[in-house]
């Protein structure tokens, strides 16, 4: 297959745009409700008004202008864009799963039983003792973890003293933001020449002010923090807690567990590791797991089981409370449970094996230099000499989704690439060809790309200068 042949999904030369709903038809209706005083109600409402067949056509067209996991390779580094098994969607659509959270425990035993088993599975997979499924996304899991950390130190009479959270310079942006939201000052530690935590810098940063160190392993460069045991001792000796960012868990499945590495708190990105769909930005789910000494602080609720096999929602004794109004993103959690159960021990072990095999094979075939290794489930190549953003746009013309770009900043013009276990050798070859074809483009050619997508390069600077954030602000709607 020639590499251009897959690039047909997006550009239809006869019809490049789909009008906005409001440009199709818009109707104003009067509002008057019997029994409601006029002072309570609005006079009228204006909204698009189109029939079901047009609604179906509109959204189908929009879906065709969107690159999904089955549109081609989707190697976004740190995002773990693996295939989302279809059967989990059918389970989430089962009316039996569509239950109200205020039903008493006795009347929603089915949901609670699945939540309980998922808690146990997640705890075992990361070597944690207890898990709460409440946080609705990874960043919410981080926030919950930070609140747990704060409650723990407060109980030790150290809340006023432990004011800092340490984060490696190459960490996910959410780590910094979650720590700050929890009221902590963020202290950044640099990486050493190997792209790992600089132990000397860490020792210098640690002290009686340290509340926690947030870390992901393998780190965002795709390399293992080999000194993890020493890091854990240093943090614990300083009286801090060690927090595991679960974003890169796919590399460790069945082979190593954060709990055994000395981590005290971990969050799980089930929309990464456990194949629940990203949904174009969400919903995800961000369960948080802890070791025994922190179990009493977990978010409310945790599901427990009685001797008579009755499942119950329980508020842990010193719970931080809630980070979501109810019980989190249940329908997402259900899909994660089904995925883990489908794979079992062997499947999870195979997922990490093939994820690491794929990343290493692709790394071998890509012509851009890869400064740090040995790479595990992802690698960060350098497009130095080219602009990584232009590289990404150009890759679209080859029918593949580009990698994550310009991050981590440790690598010049970073191309952060994570093919996951689901790509075949043929698809990885195709992806490597796309990388290498773009590497050979000169600056003028790069600036012209992409040519085959539904729109060309977008002026995002102008969009931010004078934002137009709704159809009401578009001056002359196109018809």
């Amino acid at each position, binding site marked *: 297959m020639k590499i251009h042949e897959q690039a047909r999904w997006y550009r239809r030369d006869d019809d490049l745009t789909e009008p906005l709903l409001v440009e199709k038809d818009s109707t104003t*209706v009067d509002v008057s409700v019997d029994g409601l005083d006029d002072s309570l109600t609005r006079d009228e409402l204006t909204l698009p008004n189109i029939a079901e067949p047009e609604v179906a056509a509109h*959204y189908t067209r929009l879906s065709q202008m969107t690159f999904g996991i089955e549109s081609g390779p989707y190697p976004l580094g740190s995002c773990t864009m693996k295939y989302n098994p279809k059967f989990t969607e059918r389970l989430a659509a089962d009316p039996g799963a569509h239950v109200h959270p205020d039903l008493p425990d006795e009347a929603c035993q089915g949901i609670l039983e699945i939540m309980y088993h998922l808690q146990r599975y997640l705890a075992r997979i990361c070597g944690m003792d207890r898990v709460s499924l409440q946080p609705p996304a990874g960043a919410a899991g981080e926030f919950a973890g930070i609140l747990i950390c704060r409650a723990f130190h407060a109980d030790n009479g150290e809340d006023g003293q432990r004011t800092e959270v340490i984060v490696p310079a190459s960490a996910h942006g959410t780590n910094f933001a979650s720590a700050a939201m929890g009221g902590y000052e963020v202290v950044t530690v640099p990486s050493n020449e190997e792209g790992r935590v600089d132990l000397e810098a860490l020792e210098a940063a640690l002290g009686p002010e340290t509340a926690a160190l947030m870390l992901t392993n393998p780190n965002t460069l795709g390399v293992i923090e080999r000194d993890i045991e020493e890091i854990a001792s240093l943090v614990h000796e300083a009286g801090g807690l060690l927090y595991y960012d679960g974003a890169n868990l796919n590399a460790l499945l069945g082979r190593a567990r954060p709990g055994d590495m000395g981590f005290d708190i971990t969050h799980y990105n089930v929309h990464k590791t456990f194949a629940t769909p990203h949904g*174009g930005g969400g*919903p995800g789910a961000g369960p948080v797991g802890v070791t025994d000494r922190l179990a009493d602080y977990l978010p409310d609720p945790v599901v427990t089981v009685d001797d008579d096999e009755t499942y119950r929602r329980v508020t842990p004794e010193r719970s931080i409370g809630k980070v979501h109004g109810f019980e989190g993103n249940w*329908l997402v959690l259900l899909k994660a449970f089904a995925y883990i159960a489908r794979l079992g021990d062997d499947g999870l072990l195979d997922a990490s094996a093939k994820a690491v095999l794929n990343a290493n094979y692709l790394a071998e075939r890509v012509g851009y230099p890869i400064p740090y290794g040995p790479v595990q489930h992802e690698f960060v190549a350098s497009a130095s000499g080219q602009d990584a953003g232009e590289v990404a746009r150009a890759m679209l013309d080859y029918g593949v989704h580009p990698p994550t770009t310009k991050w981590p900043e440790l690598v010049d013009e970073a191309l952060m690439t994570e093919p996951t276990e689901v790509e075949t050798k043929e698809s990885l070859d195709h992806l490597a060809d796309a990388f290498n074809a773009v590497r050979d483009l000169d600056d003028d050619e790069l600036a012209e790309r992409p040519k085959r997508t539904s729109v060309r390069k977008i002026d995002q600077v102008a969009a931010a200068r004078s934002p137009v954030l709704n159809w009401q602000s578009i001056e002359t709607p196109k018809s």
Partner: protein
Amino acid sequence: MSSPDTEDGSPYAPHTEAETEAMLDAIGASDVEELFDIPSAVAFDDTFDIPARSEAEITHEVRSILDRNASVTCLLGRGHYDHFIPAIVDHIADRSEFLTSYTQYQPEASQGYLQALFEYQSLLVELTGLGVANCSLYDAASALGEAATFAARLRHTDGNRVLVPELLHPGRRSTLENYCAGPGIEVATYPSDDGTADVDALEALVDDDTLMIYAESPTIRGTLEPASRALGELADDHDAAFCLGSDPYALSILETPHEVGADIVVGDAGVLGLPTSFGMGLGLFATREEYVRQTPGRLVGVSEDLEGTRAFSLTLVTREQHIRRERATSNICTNQAWVALRAAMHAAWLGPTGLVDAATSYVERPRELAERLDAIDGVSAPVHDRAHFREFTWRVDDDASKVANALLEHGYAVHALDDDTLQVCVTDQPNAAIDGFVHAVEEVIT
């Protein structure tokens, strides 16, 4: 390759043995295990004791577990609602490009999704009258938490205390307190009067230290707030922000938050598009245009490509965690985008007439039910002398929990709030279900 159910390992890792060999050869390794760099001291050498199941087995297993949920007519509300969702939403939103794609950081490859989110934002702008709506937060509770820290960043506000209704949903209260803990914002309560804000009592509480006044319409008890405008003025007089909690159905008939002086609107937009899902939500967040640069969450804007074609992209991204890190407006990354897509699709299907008709029925049907319950000896409904939306509270002479449990045995789920107060919610249930419920109440009470 063998069939999906007989293969060892992950059924979603498609490598043949020959391919694996060829790839290892290219890498220069003899075994996949060689590629791992995990220190031996922390290597895991055990199993999780999780047996693999075939697709058929796990499907049957999950369904048989879910069968243990009681099969009841759900008349529960209080922040999570059971609305009818048209089939088109399930079918079209499940298209794999929507369901499986990532956040739209590569706009040239995600124009369709960006446009759908832009349309969602526009819909909320129409409903709230405010100039900016983001393309989702997690749920109503976290949106309220974000509203408090957002208010603290606004230039025109000062003060450090957020005033919330005493009837605020406990899950929202707890989440709000967690969002407020970091920046040290105090959460305080104002009293209610017959199910809505006690404006006089609130007036006595508001001072220069007030950062934000939060009110809901409909409230968690289903009452519609008659004094929104006065609350907005009160906030304004004290350089505080006014945050109104609502939802898209209610907003389609209520006076717009903009008209009553709201600076922020939060709520659960998942009343559109999302089935009852154990509390999963869609955080609505809208505010005035002048505050856009302090807004949490993603925003989609319009631009042009280099040929001058209209194009969409995420915009004002320097507010966000992946750029601004600890100085970001929020830590949110993954949001509820796909639920927002479903909500917009549902609204497009309803159109303005469908939305207004539905919302009107959520005023009329509870009123009719309250009249029928009130006619039963030993029942008084509604408790509050207010207009209601979707739900209302009612009193019984008996013990409320006992009544709720007895109704559950008859197949009807309602809330028991305290010793003698219950709450019931009516959305799109068929009339026969409501009739059955009224009969069940008659039986249980007498």
